[in-house]
């Protein structure tokens, strides 16, 4: 059929517009899809619908006052964005963070990682037609939201980190609740696996689809679970440790051929899905260690009330749920940041979609977007 079209000299193409309104929760994104029937020729992303000028806003805020804005860079992993900004400024100030604060930071981040992965995995399943796992994981996320609400007062945009430490301390009852949640949650991961992870239909939808080889992943700037699923064994927590990660034991899942399903290859959608499931389990492990090892002490370093970091610049990255979230901060010695730039994983993930979308079907595009875990606020800032 395609030969007939080509020989007639006419490129018959259907141009479809996906979004910006669409019933999946990846945010406000738009794709202009050029298709030849079912097979796509190009899927051109169009971003900017959620551009709020967060980087420009920083130049009008005080150093400490910018922290609530950092939540909005990615509201699903607000702890990580808080932490990236705090670490960047702390680098400029050369602050020493007390150990209790470091452990609390790790705990907050890992709880946030589990919550974020709940959404991601649920959305992947939902986009592929399985509505139930999404609801189960959201039910678990509700408990995490409650725990975090008890910690810092907010369910989503946490504003928990401060420059120099964390905002609020925890007590025994909160730690007990986190323990109780973990005892409840780990069998839920097992239930999720038996329900949907090894499901033949899901595996067939995702195995071998949207393969990104390791060289491409590195060259296009993919990070986090996307990068690890493509076979690059790198995790900021283990390889460039920050906060209290240095002493903690956890394994980092990396993609491998034939993982769970024989058709699965390194770098396909299924591996990106599996990496995240395993990461949830590892996050639980880290949390248990933190609860056991939480030292006593201060939760904030000695920081002057009006921050004026010396002239200079710093880049700090944390391993967020979607990968490396980096904050590049430039100071001119004044009370307000001179420039704040966010390095978000979704920005790079979006840029690679056009590159890998040739030859995929429209239904595969949905799987690719979902497994690359593209979040609009992080893409647009």
């Amino acid at each position, binding site marked *: 059929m395609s030969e007939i079209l080509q020989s007639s000299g006419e490129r018959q193409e259907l141009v479809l517009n996906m979004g910006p309104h669409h019933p999946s929760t990846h945010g406000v994104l738009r794709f202009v899809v050029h298709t030849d029937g079912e097979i796509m020729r190009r899927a051109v992303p169009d*971003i*900017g619908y959620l*551009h709020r*000028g967060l*980087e*420009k806003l920083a130049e009008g805020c005080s150093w400490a006052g910018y922290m609530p804005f950092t939540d909005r860079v990615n509201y699903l992993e607000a702890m990580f964005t808080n932490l990236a900004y705090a670490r960047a400024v702390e*680098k*400029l*100030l*050369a602050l020493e963070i007390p150990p209790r604060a470091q452990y609390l930071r790790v705990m907050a981040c890992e709880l946030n990682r589990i919550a974020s992965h709940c959404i991601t995995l649920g959305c992947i399943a939902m986009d592929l037609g399985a509505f139930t796992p999404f609801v189960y994981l959201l039910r678990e996320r509700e408990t995490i939201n409650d725990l975090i609400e008890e910690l810092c007062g907010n369910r989503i945009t946490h504003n928990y980190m401060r420059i120099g430490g964390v905002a609020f301390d925890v007590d025994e009852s909160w730690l007990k609740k986190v323990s109780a949640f973990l005892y409840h949650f780990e069998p839920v991961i097992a239930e999720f696996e038996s329900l949907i992870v090894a499901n033949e239909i899901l595996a067939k939808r995702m195995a071998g689809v949207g393969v990104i080889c390791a060289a491409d992943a*590195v*060259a*296009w*700037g993919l990070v986090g679970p996307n990068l690890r699923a493509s076979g*690059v064994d*790198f995790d900021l927590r283990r*390889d*460039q440790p920050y906060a209290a990660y240095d002493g903690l034991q956890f394994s980092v899942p990396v993609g491998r051929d034939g993982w769970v399903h024989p058709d699965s290859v390194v770098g396909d959608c299924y591996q990106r899905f599996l990496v995240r499931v395993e990461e949830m389990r590892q996050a639980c492990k880290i949390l248990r260690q933190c609860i056991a090892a939480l030292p006593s002490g201060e939760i904030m370093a000695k920081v002057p009330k009006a921050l004026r*970091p*010396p*002239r*200079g*610049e*710093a*880049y700090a*990255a944390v391993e967020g749920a979607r990968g*490396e979230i*980096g904050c*590049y901060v*430039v*100071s001119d*010695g004044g009370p307000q940041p*001179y*420039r704040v*730039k966010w*390095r978000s994983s979704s*920005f*790079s993930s*979006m*840029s690679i979609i056009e*590159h890998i979308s040739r030859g995929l079907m429209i239904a595969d595009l949905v799987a690719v977007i979902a497994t690359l875990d593209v979040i609009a606020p992080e893409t*647009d800032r």
Partner: protein
Amino acid sequence: MEASEIKKRLEELLSSELVWKIGEKQTGDGWVEIPLEKWTEACRLARDDEKLLFEFLRALSGVDRPGENNIELVAHLFSYRHRHAVVLKTKVSRENPVAASVCSVWPAAEWYEREIFDLLGVNFREHPDLRRILLPEDWPGHPLRKDYQQPASYRGIPTSRPAPEGSAS
């Protein structure tokens, strides 16, 4: 490799003197300044050289410096194999902000450079698809510039609202 060694290696490869600077109180990150005409070449060498192998472009940012009358392009690089990082900077003049694109070195730079073009107005030669990315195609001005004036309205929609009654102005 340490920052000084990286700088020395880059000097060897580019066969020219480079400057390494750091912030006021020696805190934060230091950077290597690359002359503008050697920008792409330096990036390519940074990626390809055996000792450097900076195959990961972490971030490519632009910083507007009206005081020095230039716009800085800051590239944060990282190497997975050697586990070292470096910051390369180059300066583009504000009157004629044109730089060479590094898309041929790292495909990730495509969208970073589009963003710098969009928000700061820097043109990149040899960029495959240089157009605005975050803002609408017909938006006037480049917001991240320090002298940016927000237009009063865009296509008839006002860009600010009057403050509600009773609130602090």
